[in-house]
């Protein structure tokens, strides 16, 4: 980044690069967009490109949206949606795996740290998790060809960072922090759940109750 670039320019650039801006991924840009006046400036600058500032997850995350939707825009959004739809299953399986390996019943959310080494030692010691990871890592989203837990995990995290679901605050350490794009994912799931009337939460609760009665 050039030293002469203003914060306004930096935020504009990030938005036009299709980035999600949240308090974890870019705290300065996020607080910049927290001000009404700055949002108005950005919207004014995005308008000639048929774009505007949009937010999701109760204002936890900002991104760039189309202002007017014509056929072209619909086509772009449709192919983008189909791409992210194919990511949903691998991502959900990965999140469940990470949650299980951490022994927690709360899913990962923005700001939660994930330590690769800890995860690795738990997975290595648990055959069921090892199997699960091998399956998850082979999805096209992650595309791992490695046979070792170490190689699979590193590849998974590499892709998660590339897609903006995690950041790695310190390049010298293997600690990853979840961004609000993960919460965006939950909101997308909830949207699909409601739109398609899948009753996902009910299914999960039924499965849980069944387990309990079996026990």
């Amino acid at each position, binding site marked *: 980044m050039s030293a002469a670039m203003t914060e306004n320019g930096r935020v504009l650039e990030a938005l036009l690069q299709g980035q999600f801006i949240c308090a974890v991924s870019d705290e300065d840009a996020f607080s910049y967009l927290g001000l009404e006046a700055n949002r108005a400036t950005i919207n004014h600058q995005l308008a000639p490109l048929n774009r505007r500032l949009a937010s999701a997850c109760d204002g936890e995350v900002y991104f760039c949206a189309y202002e007017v939707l014509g056929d072209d825009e619909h086509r772009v*959004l449709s192919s983008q949606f189909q791409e992210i739809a*194919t990511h949903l299953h691998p991502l959900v399986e990965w999140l469940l795996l990470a949650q299980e390996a951490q022994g927690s019943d709360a899913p990962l959310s923005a700001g939660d740290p994930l330590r690769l080494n800890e995860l690795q030692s738990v997975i290595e010691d648990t055959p069921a998790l090892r199997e699960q990871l091998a399956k998850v890592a082979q999805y096209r989203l992650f595309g791992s060809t490695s046979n070792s837990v170490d190689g699979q995990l590193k590849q998974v995290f590499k892709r998660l960072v590339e897609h903006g679901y995690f950041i790695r605050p310190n390049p010298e350490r293997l600690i990853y922090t979840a961004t609000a794009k993960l919460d965006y994912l939950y909101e997308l799931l909830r949207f699909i759940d409601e739109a398609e009337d899948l009753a*996902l939460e*009910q299914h999960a609760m039924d499965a849980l109750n069944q387990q309990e009665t079996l026990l």
Partner: protein
Amino acid sequence: MNPNLLKAGKRLFKLLDRNSEALMEGYANGQLDEAELDAKQAQALLQAGLVFRPDADSPLMLSSNLRSLLEEALSDIRNREIDANVGTRLNSLKTLASHYKEARHQGDLAAADAYLQDLTQHTYQLTESLRHSTRALWSRINNEFGYVASLSAKIRENQLAQQQVKELLDSLSLLSFESLSQTAGDIRELRRLLVLHLAVAVEECTQELAVVQSRLLALLGRFRELRGKARLLKGFALHCERQPDYQPKDWTLQSQLPDLLNQSPACIRPAAVDIRHQDHEQQLLSLASKLKPRRHNQHEPEASSELSLEASEEFALSEQQIKRDVEDYLVSSFDSLQQLSALDYLEQNELTWPAEVWLYQVWGSYHALPDEQRQYFSLEHHEEDYGQFTGNRIVTDITVAVR
């Protein structure tokens, strides 16, 4: 006080001391291991009401009084007891106040004094118990009910805490300013105790509980949201398991799209010049030749000087210097026998160290002194509260003085 009572109290403490190991084990495990106690000691503990046996076949357990004493003294986060029984305490306050008024009226000053003392103790106990309750609630909020593992358990704990806050608030409304003021009448001592001390404490406590309540609600919302997300993930995975070829419908084809589905893709990408690309060489050269150095916002690089190892003292100097200054400060406080705070000394001697660095160095040097030297000095922190309820304190200054 009755001398026999004093003696019996001391005996009780000795009894506790003698059985401390068994009692602490009982505190941790919920029940006492009777194999570790001899029958006589167990009998003594039972008689003193420190332990009890719920029924004939069950093991000995710690009495609730002893348990709450330990929970309070050890700041144990499992401490969930909230004493909301303000009503009874209020009645005993009122009764004592009436006793006191009557004794005063009859001119029995000795009895009035005794009643007033009793009343003072009751009042302080009540305010202390209120503060304790709010403290206990805060500590549970601050570690987000960390003593239970699952989200459902956290939600239940949260609901219990909310119930307790509600009960506490209800009982606090009994202690209204009017009723206390009425009880106190126009007697100065009673007004000081009941109106000034108790009513203020009640007011503070009520305000704080309102904050506690809203924090509990926010926390409950978060727990529920997390639980919802967890179920969503689990449900989606199950759904995909049942229908392996499931694909979500394309919802972007509607004319009105929620922002969630309307994320425009990147229209600029990170770019950099490829200096190894030969075809671009001419173009890059011509661009480079047009570049003019910008004058504004430019720092002149500092003239470099040759670095030699002999000069290493120059770098070490400032560290040595601050240590020497601190030594001077300690010596001067030793010589003058005056209490001079570190920052005052810094100012008086026109030293240039930043205040924080100076305080850390004084603090560090004091603790680095050999034991036999340090015992001549005392170190006093000047602290002030930070914020309202956090319990954090900020050290603004320190004074080293001769003991």
